[in-house]
Each structure stands twice: as structure tokens, then as C-alpha cells.
């Protein structure tokens, strides 16, 4: 915001309070009420404002407090943000970033725990990014702000407390490029957001206790996913486990799996294994939430399954 006066910030409680998770604290004092605006509970209008402002040259960042509430502005995202560049024949676009807290683990039940990425994968024009580390969060967020396309930026609410090295200076990470977090030879494990940490934990345990070598890939950009990195790793290992926290049916894992069948069927030594939440809502009680959403044990089990196959 300091580098680019076109960047504005809108959302519920983003200004005076600094956001539900404190992510925008201090920005109102620094950039003033024209550029940092608290809004009423009006998700559709928030997205519409962002679209309109972007069409005439601003670069709005909006915060949709919880990703579950994106359903309220789905029309704006799907019919306006995603299609603007096409509709205007390249003369303008919705260069917006939608920051939103996603994911389970907060014991917050059905309407505060969902992972919305799959809701957007059938919409040409949308990009969905999700970091797993503080370093990636900064680099990807700056890249998203500078990107001329509408970018939905998922912040897993269980990762807000994560610490790690973050340089002071501005830097970007490329959108659409995955990162191999841990090299391995037996199985490729593809994950994103919080599940990256679970995948790494499972990989460490499997290496130490069962001598299974997992290559763990952090997608970082969920839609569109980095086919080249995923397929290159699969070529090396011949086995793949896809991990994603959203319900299984129609998830991004479904899409990645379909691409593997089309592009890399001959590289497979075993069927693709998908690790997702069950196809049920996320309930409140810890025992229910933990059972429904995937954890390191589920990932390890899937890895053993593709090895045994």
C-alpha cells in the first residue's frame, strides 16, 4: 500500500479493529479512511465495490472475514470478477485480491470451517492461492496484489500463529508455481495450506519408522495447479497421494487426479490416492471435527496404501 497508491483495502472490521485475525492492524492509521474502509455486513457489495474500483484502475484488496461467507458474493466473483477481462476484450480486468480465512481446526462448526477452493475451479478467470508459511504468505500476497487477475487468497486460520523467517523488504513468489518442500523417491504427496504441515509430519514419521521416502509438494497456487511440478515428481516416484482439506467429491484433488489420468497414466505404479475431508459438514465438537478432517495419520495410511498396491 505504501508503494502503490492504487491499492485500497475493504472489509468487515478491517479498519478500526484491524481484522478478525489482526492481519490489517495499523493500516487505517497509516493510509487513512479513504483507502482503508470498514464495511457493513455486505459481502456482495464489498466484492462489487472492488470490481468497480478495479475496472477504473484501483487495485482493491478485500477481506471476506471467513471463506464460508464467500457464498454471499459468489455472483460478483463468478459473473463479474472472473469474466471482466474477457468481457472488456482485454481493456480492463478485475485486478482484485480477496483475502479470506479458510479451513478447519478452530472448533468453529459448519459456517466458519470450510475450504472453498473447489467452488472456484469451474470458473475460467479465477485464481486461488494459499500459502503454508509466513515467507510464502508475504511473497504470494504481494504477487497477488500486483497480478492483474482476480486472485482469491486463502489464509488457513490455523496457520495465523505460524512463525518463520520473513524478510523486511518487498519480494514476490510466482503464482502458479508449486514448491517441493521435501525431496523423496517412493511417493509424491501433494498438499496445500495446513495440510502441507501434516504431510511433512507424516513424511518424517514414515521415513524414520518405515523407511518410506516421500516427496512433499506444496501447491501454493491451488487453481490452476502446477502440472509440471506434480507430473515431474510423479514420473520420479510412480506413486501419488493428493491431500486437500475440502470434502472429497469434486475437490481440487478430483481435478488433479483427472489430469494425472490424462497426462501421466503410464507413470503410475498404483492408483491415485486422495486424502480429503469426508463428505459431511464440519461439526462443532472436537471429536467430530477431528474425525471428519484429514490429519497426518490419514496421509500416512494413504501413503502405505499406494506403496502396498
Amino acid at each position, binding site marked *: 500500500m505504501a508503494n502503490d497508491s492504487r491499492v*485500497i483495502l475493504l472489509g468487515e472490521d478491517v479498519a478500526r479493529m484491524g481484522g478478525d485475525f489482526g492481519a490489517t492492524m495499523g493500516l487505517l492509521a497509516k493510509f487513512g479512511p*479513504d*483507502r482503508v*474502509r470498514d*464495511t*457493513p455486513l*455486505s459481502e*456482495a*457489495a*464489498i*466484492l*462489487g*465495490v*472492488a*470490481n*468497480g*474500483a*478495479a*475496472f*477504473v*484502475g*484501483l487495485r*482493491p484488496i478485500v477481506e471476506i472475514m471467513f471463506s464460508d461467507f464467500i457464498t454471499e458474493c459468489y*455472483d*460478483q466473483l463468478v*459473473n*463479474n470478477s472472473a469474466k471482466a*477481462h*474477457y*468481457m*472488456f*476484450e*482485454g*481493456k*480492463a*480486468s478485475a*485486478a482484485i485480491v480477496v483475502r479470506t480465512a479458510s479451513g478447519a481446526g478452530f472448533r468453529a462448526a459448519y459456517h466458519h470451517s470450510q475450504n472453498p477452493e473447489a467452488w472456484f475451479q469451474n470458473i*475460467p*478467470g479465477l*485464481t486461488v492461492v494459499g500459502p503454508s508459511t509466513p515467507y510464502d504468505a508475504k511473497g504470494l500476497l504481494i504477487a497477488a496484489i500486483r*497480478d*492483474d*487477475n482476480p486472485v482469491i487468497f486463502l489464509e488457513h486460520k490455523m496457520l495465523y500463529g505460524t512463525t518463520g523467517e520473513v524478510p523486511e523488504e518487498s519480494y514476490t513468489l510466482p503464482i*502458479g508455481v508449486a514448491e517441493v518442500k521435501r525431496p523423496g523417491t517412493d511417493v509424491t504427496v501433494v498438499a496445500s495450506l495446513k495440510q502441507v504441515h501434516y504431510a511433512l509430519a507424516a513424511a518424517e514419521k514414515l521415513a524414520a519408522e518405515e523407511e518410506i521416502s516421500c516427496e512433499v509438494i506444496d501447491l501454493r497456487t491451488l487453481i490452476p495447479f502446477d502440472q509440471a511440478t506434480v507430473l515431474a515428481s510423479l514420473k520420479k516416484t510412480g506413486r501419488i497421494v493428493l491431500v486437500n482439506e475440502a470434502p472429497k467429491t469434486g475437490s481440487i484433488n478430483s481435478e488433479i487426479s483427472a489430469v494425472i489420468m490424462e497426462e501421466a497414466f503410464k507413470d503410475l505404479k498404483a492408483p491415485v490416492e486422495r486424502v480429503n475431508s469426508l463428505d459431511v459438514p464440519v461439526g462443532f465438537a472436537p471429536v467430530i471435527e477431528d474425525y471428519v478432517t484429514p490429519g497426518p495419520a490419514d496421509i500416512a495410511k494413504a501413503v502405505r496404501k499406494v506403496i502396498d498396491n
Partner: protein
Amino acid sequence: MDKQKLLDYYRKMVLVRRFEETMEEYAKKGYIPGFLHLGIGQEASQVGAMSAFEPGDYVLPDHRGHGVCLMVGTPTREVMAEIFGKKTGTNGGRGGSMHVADLKRGNIGNNAIQGSTMATACGLAVSAQVKKTKSITFDFLGDGTVGRGEFHESLNLAGIWKLPIVYVLVNNGYAISTRATDAHPLADLAKMGCAYNIPGVTVDGNDVEAVAAAVKEAADRARRGDGATIVELKTYRWQGHFSGDPASYRPAEELAAWKEKCPIKHLRTQLLGKKLTDEAALKAIADDVEREIQDALKFAIDSPTPTIEDALRFVYVGREVAGK
């Protein structure tokens, strides 16, 4: 009374009327793909309201907004070519009748989802506040839009942020077949702004002078920084919802009565009655308009269609999409 201004309104209304009649004719001949929503009968609302539009302003046309698109200053041939789905159209033939946009002249385009443009309008107005310009936004709506959540969310935002917007609420009595009076509890929809501290005024939408005066006042208010206004224009669409809709849901006598209140006829009677012009001058205007329409028609018919390569362009900025 400014004679030149009235003659200018007359020419513009005749242009919009002839444009719409020509579109209907060529839709029936099979030249126009898809739906076509016509605004015949609503010319005074479009021409009168847009007389307050200035360069640097923004406008979001409504569902029958061809006339509004023309009033921005976009060449008639480019609007027509877009409706014909041609590469020379405002959107390269990818938007069609419903999405004619001309960003450099401030037309941000319409949206098939009624009311979605209302939130976009708030964003355009916010951009003017952030950039500290005097741009105001004209947001054309139909009566059906009043039912949408975004109508209320957007008026609420416009109210709290004092956004420089003129809501031109074209109440033509029907949302497809549903009467406005069956869909909304108020007869005068301008009063809907009351809950958001946005003043509203209801005007005869077939009287171009009355429309122009009311919208000018609202525009001045917005430019002064005093916020949004709803100007409701009571009018009527002569055609069905889309070209080809027989509109059997409304009584013939109702249509006949509104045809008597034709905005062009009304202005013509005034101009002649007050001896501000004569038949010959009006005929000259009509002939001039006809030349413009025929030129646009030839342009639209002769223009190339988009190619299949165009289908893949501009999905993303800086990212290719695979073809077949």
C-alpha cells in the same frame, strides 16, 4: 426554453428509437444472435438522464440500455456491430446486446444479473473519492432490481459513504411479466432510498425535459459531494421483455394508452406548438438520423465476425488458455 437543447433531445430520441426499431427488424431477419431487449418507449428516460453525463463520468446502463450506450458518445456503428456479434463491436463481439461497454468513454457495461451493477457503481464512486476526482456515476436500474439484495446493500453503502452516484431507476411497470406494483410494496420506488438517507424523486419518464432537470439536480448534488439520489422515471416499454415476446401478460389498452404518451410525439407536439421548429426541420433531423442508422447497419453487416482464436483471448491477463 432552450430551442437548441430541445432539438438535440429530439434528434437523440429519434436516433434511439430508430436504432431499436432497426435492431428488432434485423433480429427478425436472423442477423442478431441471442436475446435482444429493446427500450422502445423509454427514449426520454435514456436521453434526458444522460444529458447530465459529462466526460470523466461513469455509467452503467440498464437491461434495455442501448440508448444509454449511444448517449455516451460511442459511435452508433460500434454499438450496432456489438449487437450483431461482430469483431468491430465495442466488446469485439463477445458481449452482445446485454454487455455493450466502452471503458474509455465511461460506459462500464451492463450485467445480465439485475442489480449486480449497483455494487460495481459503488466501486466506481469509491474510485472517484480515492482519486479525488469530480467523476460521478450514473447507475441505470429497472424496477425489478429493487428486489435484489444488492439494491439494498449498495444503497446502504452509498448512504454511509456519501457516494457520488445518480440512481436512474427506470420504472417501466414490469419485470418480464411481473408488475412492479405486485413485486414491491411502494408505488413510488424512489422512496426506497429513505431507509438509507438517500433522497428520491419520481418523475414522468416520458417527459424528456422533466427527466433532464431532475437528473441534473441529482448530478449536481453528487458532484458537490452531497451523495447519491434516486431519480425514478415512470415509463413503459412497448415491446415484450425480449424481441419476440408477445407480452400477452399485459392488457392491450394499457399499451395503447402508453403509446399515446410517446415521448417523441410529446416533444414533437411541444416543439411545433410553440413554433420552435417546423415539419421540414424535423424531417431533416429524421433523415439525418436515418443516414446514421443505415451507415451503422452497413458497417455491422459488412464487419467480420470474431475468429475462434478470439475465443481463447483475454481469459486471464498474461496466461494462455489451451484450445481444442
